[in-house]
């Protein structure tokens, strides 16, 4: 083939580079898709229900992981995602119940995530507080406050509306799962695509990665490292907030004490498994979700006689295994967790 036009050549080369860089991921996704459709041909209802379970399971994890990705890519470690989720689930649910509007509830939940993100960023940047400790503080405060102010017997004024994208939603198997759902489900898809683009293709992304890898280089290039860390970590709180709202308002319609149940930490594992890439985090979360979904289906079908508790344990065991395998293969942003002080770099 010699008759390529320059334009297609450039695009072809870019595609080639993309394929080369994401070989493993593409292989996994491809295998998965083939397997999924084979199953779908055999048992359409069951296949769809497992995939829906997986996606439902993934949404808060993906949002949590993206919160971590934005923070750590900018150099701030956030282990308070669990707390952000829990507090947002609480704030969203009870605001909706009190005001009678799910939309005000949604807003309140996301803002709660934002405020907690701002707190973390503020103490980490202004006071150079240990970021792990600051994150733990968020988790403890969230647990305490949400348990203390919890009241029974409240309910949402209405269910969150379900949207459907015409045409796309009629694709077999993936259509009804990914293109039919609540607002946060769609928001998650957009957030993954948007961040994947923003981190690697925009000015903001280049600067964000620079301040997380080598802040003094960014500083000498005239970038305000600390301001950017502050803004990024704060805004990332919106994502964790959405994850929390999803738990209490979209996935279920109720708030329970401790309902985040470690999902914030699972999200961090997914962030690592996804090597701090938004798209890979989505894939990793779906992998977790599918494993849990399949196990749960097998158990329900009495194919294997294992107690439900062991099935529920699966995501956590998987986390251990995955982290043991992934750790050492992936590389975290070099400057994460390290406060930036002007003039101390070189």
């Amino acid at each position, binding site marked *: 083939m010699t008759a390529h036009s320059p334009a297609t050549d450039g695009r072809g080369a870019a595609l080639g580079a993309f394929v080369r860089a994401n070989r493993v991921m593409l292989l996994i996704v491809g295998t998965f898709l083939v397997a999924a459709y084979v199953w779908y041909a055999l048992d359409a209802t069951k296949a769809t229900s497992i995939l829906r379970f997986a996606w439902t399971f993934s949404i808060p994890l993906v949002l949590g992981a993206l919160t971590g990705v934005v923070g750590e890519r900018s150099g701030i470690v956030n282990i308070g995602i669990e707390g952000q989720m829990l507090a947002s689930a609480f704030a969203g649910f009870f605001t909706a119940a009190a005001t009678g509007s799910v939309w005000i509830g949604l807003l309140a939940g996301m803002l709660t995530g934002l405020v907690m993100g701002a707190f973390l960023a503020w103490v980490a940047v202004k006071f150079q507080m240990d970021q792990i400790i600051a994150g733990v503080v968020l988790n403890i405060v969230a647990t305490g406050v949400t348990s203390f102010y919890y009241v029974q017997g409240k309910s949402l004024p209405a269910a969150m509306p379900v949207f459907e994208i015409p045409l796309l939603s009629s694709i077999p198997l993936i259509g009804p799962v990914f293109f039919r759902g609540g607002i946060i489900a769609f928001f998650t898809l957009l957030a993954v695509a948007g961040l994947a683009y923003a981190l690697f293709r925009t000015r903001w992304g*280049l600067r964000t990665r620079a301040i997380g*890898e080598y802040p003094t280089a960014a500083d000498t*290039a005239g970038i305000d490292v600390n301001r950017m860390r502050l803004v990024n970590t704060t805004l990332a709180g919106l994502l964790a907030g959405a994850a929390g709202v999803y738990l209490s308002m979209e996935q279920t319609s109720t708030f329970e004490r401790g309902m985040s149940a470690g999902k914030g930490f699972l999200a961090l594992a997914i962030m690592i498994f996804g090597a701090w890439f938004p798209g890979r985090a989505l894939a990793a979360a779906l992998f977790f979700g599918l494993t849990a979904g399949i196990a749960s289906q097998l158990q329900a079908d009495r194919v294997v006689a294992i107690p439900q508790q062991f099935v529920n344990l699966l995501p956590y065991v998987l986390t251990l295994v995955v982290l043991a395998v992934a750790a050492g293969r992936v590389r975290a942003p070099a400057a994460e967790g390290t406060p930036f002080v002007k*003039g101390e770099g070189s």
Partner: protein
Amino acid sequence: MTQAPDVPAGGPPPAPDVPARERLLEITGLTKVYGTVRANDDISLHVDRGEIVALLGENGAGKSTLVKQVFGLVSPDAGTIVVGGDPARIQDPTDAIRRGIGMVHQHFQLVPVMTVAENVILGHEPVKGLGLDLAAARRLVRDISQRHGLAVDPDARIEDLPVGTQQRVEIIKALSREVKLLILDEPTAVLTPQETDELLQVMRELAQRGTSIVFITHKLREVLAVADRVYVLRRGAVVGEVAARDTDTAGLAQLMVGRSVVLRVDKGAPKLGETVLDVADLHVRDDRRLPAVDGFTLSVREGEIVGVAGVEGNGQRELVEAIAGMRRSESGTLSLLGQDITRADPGQTHRAGMGHIPENREVHGLVGTFSIADNLVLNRYDEDAFANGFVRDRAAIRANAQRWIEEFDIRTPSGDLPAGSLSGGNKQKVVVAREMSARPRLLLAAQPTRGVDVGSIEFIHRRIVEARDAGAAVLLVSAELDEILSLADRVAVIHAGKVVAELDPATADRTEIGRLMAGGGHD
């Protein structure tokens, strides 16, 4: 070009379109104080357009502090910096960049996981719509690299490139911002000789096109090869300004190490005993695996101070590290009191009777987060005096700290405070106290008073002489010729990793030493 190509001294003449003597940078009375150390002390200098100016001086002379102020990384305590006629204070690097100042830092400011193009555009990214215009970025890199002969692939990842190429990226980065004044902080420290020659060539071309260059170095050859004018800095002050064509290596070496003897140390004649340290035909490589110590032979006897004088970077660091057991030698032997220590580690050399005051106290001398008391027993914590079996004897450690804090006048409210909280001079006293408290048979002192206030210098000098009078052998390595001449009983001049002369400091002539340090015979 009107100049004969074989004349090494003096830079190129200004290009015809550059008006002569257009002042680009004017610094007046610049002062910066850190604690008790005057890092910059009333410095005044200027740089003209298209001129290459070298800042020459040993480590700690204040060169980096000076240029960091010009680049807005450090704000001055006093004095003015006028760039292109604009006297407004330079707020930060952004401000400096805006005014046409570019800086290539000693530690490259490049993000290792990013590509060349991404690093070059960082902070002034071309955009197309929402996204980065990476095609424009690549074009920018290619344009600059072609125009200035700085070959580099815009899509290569920084971490995959050799240091010489990384530096080229740094220069491209600076040039992409339309620099009028390019600051190079020790640009050749990490380069091989070939890479250095390439860099000097690039510098000449840039200057011809009207870019002014300030470059920091302590290598005399480079100064003479490329600079128009030289400012020599010592202990934070400008001690000399010369046109490169009016001087030579010996003249520069002399300026660098100083001519005024301020520090006088009272000491009697040495009472020589047996040989303590014997270094025979030692060969050591540096971090880049290049020969640094190249056939060094020297011995030190009981009761004498032998000073190793030389321009920095002639193998002194590697020599000291090899003797202390911190660096493996390639060949040759080291013996301490007849015991072979060629392959000994630092613990073994310590037990064999060596005390070592390392050149870099922050990295090798102290653990900043440990208490002063713990630092004072850092290499003896497991000895019977400070431990009962597995358990540390806190009372003894504290009593030891009390004693040395008093004896060495270490200024601190308590020995329990972290050593990192002390001033430079007091930190150094902690190191010296610890090494002396073990009553070493050999004291290896590398730059023992670097970055230390005058009071502490005198104190440390007196202590070194006392150790010698008590029968210790002292090997003193210093970049300060004054220090060596006032302390040493015998001076070995090191050049290119070997001893080129041994002299008696009482009769030695400074000009002669300067000439020897610069490489000897020819001049």
